[in-house]
């Protein structure tokens, strides 16, 4: 094949443009995506075997690794992190799985508001959920504890968020909507005939569940557990907002503390990060193994299923109550307490007296705080920028992996590079990028550009997936018809592909923008005065601020986000209709 790709000049004909366009595109993507993903991770190894700060002639030594891993402290942090992540992953899977089962396989009324679970994480960035729960369960000023004191006269706090199980509680609520969204399609795709066959054979409900349903869903469940284990392990917000004040140090906290130490110890932070990367690689390997023979469990066929729904009967009320309670826990209560506190001068249990205290001063104070305003603007600009860039890259990668027939190995490489960040904790990217651009003579450290790089890299997997699902709907003959009609590559792209895939491209842009807006795990290592971003600023405000002003601030931001989400949704839908 390669010989035909070489341009041979003839008088009348030019060689195929199409082949070389794709080849150039692929080369550009290999380089750009490779540059986004590989160096920030590779430099962690460099940092671990030196003991000199960046931008200084390196001194190579094994002391850094020795110092990092010789102490008991880091191993107990790793153990606590593992315990935290395992507990969280197990809890979200049990609750999320049960909810998915209720929605998909029973006649529960929870179905009616199942979509709200999908919306909850969009409306409630994790730093806000955690903030809300601190305001609810804080030992001194948490609303639930205040209500217990004022209404029922209980002196000590009934529940204290600042504990290991408090962390697991918030961590679970934070990932519950995602777990539900992850498992819902699995339940939907499962062929009910398989269960009905067991029942016809004489198996009861529990026997069917144990012998048929769970074994069939096993690859999905194990795979989801591993994913949520990695997510919880890499999460930084709960360990910082709750763990740090409670003096419960997790592994991610240790990385952050090493970085935050004065002078900052990036070598130790890198050495710690390496272990994280190792755990991630092992987890991905385990994930691949678990889902390897998922095809053996393929349960969907061409037939359209109308699953027979299990009648709940008198359990209806229980299931509806459960749905409402869960919705209150993941969004309703934290939302309420944030808005309530936004209007109060200091934390208060709701009472007639407190209503008289309501004030708008917090809003004025928040609006006066320059970094707060800057952070919102920065996050919006960076979110939109990352959304556009990630979507362009994601769409091109998705298109090539669907259409390019040659160089499949390279296409697969780009695809794997682009989806790798799915399993790599954001904070690892933060540490790596900070190192990289302190070493390289590219002056973007401390600017918005480094945050943009981080956001694009972290969210690229989502962009690729959304674009892939959109583009795979397009029959290749639609583009081939364009080529035959005489349209060149660019014309086909702009007049056919782009127009037909517009709804999913807009969805990808919006999704990445919203996720980037709340990103904190990488940002916390990359922001500087002047380049504050929203989620990191919320973390900072908890450290040394007034929780009522913070509430007013996040209330305004949530309102802004909701409006923007609605507007974008309208625009996207209009594009979707006309296309």
């Amino acid at each position, binding site marked *: 094949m390669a010989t035909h790709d070489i341009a041979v000049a003839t008088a009348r004909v030019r060689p*195929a443009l199409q082949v070389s366009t794709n080849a150039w595109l692929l080369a550009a993507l290999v380089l750009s995506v490779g540059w986004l993903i590989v160096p920030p991770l590779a430099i962690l190894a460099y940092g671990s075997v030196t003991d000199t700060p960046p931008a200084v002639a390196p001194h190579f030594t094994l002391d850094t690794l020795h110092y990092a891993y010789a102490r008991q402290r880091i191993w107990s942090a790793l153990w606590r992190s593992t315990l935290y992540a395992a507990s969280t992953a197990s809890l979200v899977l049990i609750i999320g799985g049960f909810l998915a089962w209720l929605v998909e396989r029973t006649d529960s009324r929870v179905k009616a508001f199942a979509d709200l679970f999908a919306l909850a994480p969009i409306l409630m960035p994790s730093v806000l959920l955690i903030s809300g729960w601190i305001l609810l369960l804080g030992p001194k000023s948490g609303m639930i504890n205040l209500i217990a004191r004022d209404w029922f006269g209980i002196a000590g706090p009934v529940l204290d968020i600042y504990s290991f199980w408090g962390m697991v509680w918030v961590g679970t609520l934070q990932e519950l909507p995602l777990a539900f969204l992850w498992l819902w399609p699995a339940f939907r795709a499962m062929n009910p005939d398989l269960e009905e066959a067991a029942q016809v054979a004489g198996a009861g409900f529990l026997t069917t569940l144990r012998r048929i349903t769970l074994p069939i869903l096993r690859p999905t469940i194990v795979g989801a557990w591993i994913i949520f284990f990695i997510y919880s392990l890499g999460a930084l917000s709960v360990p910082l907002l709750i763990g740090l004040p409670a003096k419960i140090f997790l592994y991610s906290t240790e990385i952050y503390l090493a970085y935050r130490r004065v002078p900052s110890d990036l070598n130790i932070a890198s050495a710690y990060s390496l272990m994280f990367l190792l755990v991630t690689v092992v987890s991905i390997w385990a994930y691949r193994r678990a889902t390897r023979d998922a095809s053996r469990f393929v349960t969907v066929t061409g037939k359209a299923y109308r699953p027979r729904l299990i009648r709940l009967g008198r359990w209806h009320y229980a299931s509806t109550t459960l749905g409402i309670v869960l919705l209150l826990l993941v969004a309703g209560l934290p939302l309420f307490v944030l808005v309530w506190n936004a209007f109060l001068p200091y934390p208060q249990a709701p009472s007639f007296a407190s209503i008289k205290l309501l004030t708008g001063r917090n809003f004025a104070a928040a609006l006066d705080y320059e970094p707060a305003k800057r952070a919102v603007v920065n996050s919006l600009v960076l979110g939109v920028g990352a959304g556009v860039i990630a979507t362009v890259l994601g769409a091109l990668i998705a298109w090539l992996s669907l259409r390019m027939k040659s160089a499949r190995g390279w296409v697969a490489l780009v695809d794997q590079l682009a989806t790798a960040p799915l399993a790599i904790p954001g904070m690892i990217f933060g540490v790596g990028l900070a190192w990289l651009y302190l070493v390289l003579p590219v002056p973007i450290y401390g600017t918005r550009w480094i945050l943009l790089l981080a956001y694009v890299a972290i969210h690229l997997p989502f962009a690729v997936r959304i674009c892939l699902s959109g583009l795979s709907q397009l029959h290749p003959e639609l583009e*081939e018809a364009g*080529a035959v009609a005489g349209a060149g590559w660019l014309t086909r792209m702009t007049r056919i592909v782009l127009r037909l895939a517009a709804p999913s491209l807009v969805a990808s842009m919006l999704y990445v923008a919203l996720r980037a807006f709340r990103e904190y795990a990488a940002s916390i290592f990359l922001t500087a005065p002047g380049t504050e971003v929203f989620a990191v600023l919320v973390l900072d405000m908890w450290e040394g601020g007034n929780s009522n002003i913070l509430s007013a601030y996040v209330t305004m931001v949530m309102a802004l986000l909701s409006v923007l989400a609605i507007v974008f949704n309208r625009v996207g839908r209009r594009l979707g209709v006309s296309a």
Partner: protein
Amino acid sequence: MISVRDVAKRFDAGTERVHALDGVGFVVESHSFFTLLGPSGCGKSTLLRCVAGLETPDAGEIDIGVQPVFSSARGINLPPNRRRIGMVFQSYAIWPHMTVFQNVAFPLEVQRRPDVRARTLAALEVVGLASMADRYASRLSGGQQQRVAFARAIVAEPDVLLLDEPLSNLDAALREQMCAELRKLHERLRLTTLYVTHDQGEALSLSDQIAVMRDGRFVEVATPEALWNAPRTIFAAQFLGGANILAGEAQHASGGAIVQTGFGVLRTTHVASGPVSVFVRPENVSLVPPGEGPNRFSCALVGQRFQGDTRNLELRLPNGGPVLRSRTRTGALPAGGAVTIEILPEHVEVLREGDR
């Protein structure tokens, strides 16, 4: 004119390389209708897509008119958008975000041709869709989409027209109607046409020439009549009309030859001698009243299938041997009963090339 010489293409299928095209060559004369016919996977669509430039052959040469569009030796590979072709796809590939008019006008627009509006309307007139110009193409029926696809393929007056199983997504009645229309359009426009199908009926009724393909090679190229009446190969004889093939030994006889086959001694009006393959079309195996005569056999009925206008019978000599298929008009016959058949000597055809 389309000229294809020694075109080869291989695909990676897991570890082994599969020949999709194995040194194929043919010429489609200007203004004629040439059909590639074969079972699925025989390489016919790949060949068409190589002519279109949608696939790149590993070797060979392709000219459209006097223009070389592909040559592995000279390093020429013109992209599809510069080959001046029109093509109708199996899925029609009507762009759902454009109206009928916009779909058909697209080739004129991107090729920067003048008189876009007039030519587009003229093309829509040809396929009888002028009144639907402003409809969104996705709201059309299968037959209408087919017409839009055809109008779009001819609007820019291409040098050649490529049709990739265009009728396979239509139901039987509509397929019949479109087939007749396609032939009429061809007679009117006289575009050099390359057509791909697995349906022998379409191939026979549309084509000037048919190439029967198997495993990436041409088995036989001939006019529809020649291919039907006097195929040279077993594959072509069986693929078109499902003929009964019998191997045998021929001897000269007065008025033709007699052939000793597994089904007894068959008399034929054709001249042959030595080892040969003969074939008999099922519709030429007729039921007759019991009695003696040349090419008359008393057989056991081993199977029957009602087909509507005809009945398919499977017959075997009482003492065993090969199964002979007959297609005839008759009522239901008693299962396992005995029947007498006759094959007229002029219907016992001799394959010239036998097995290949």
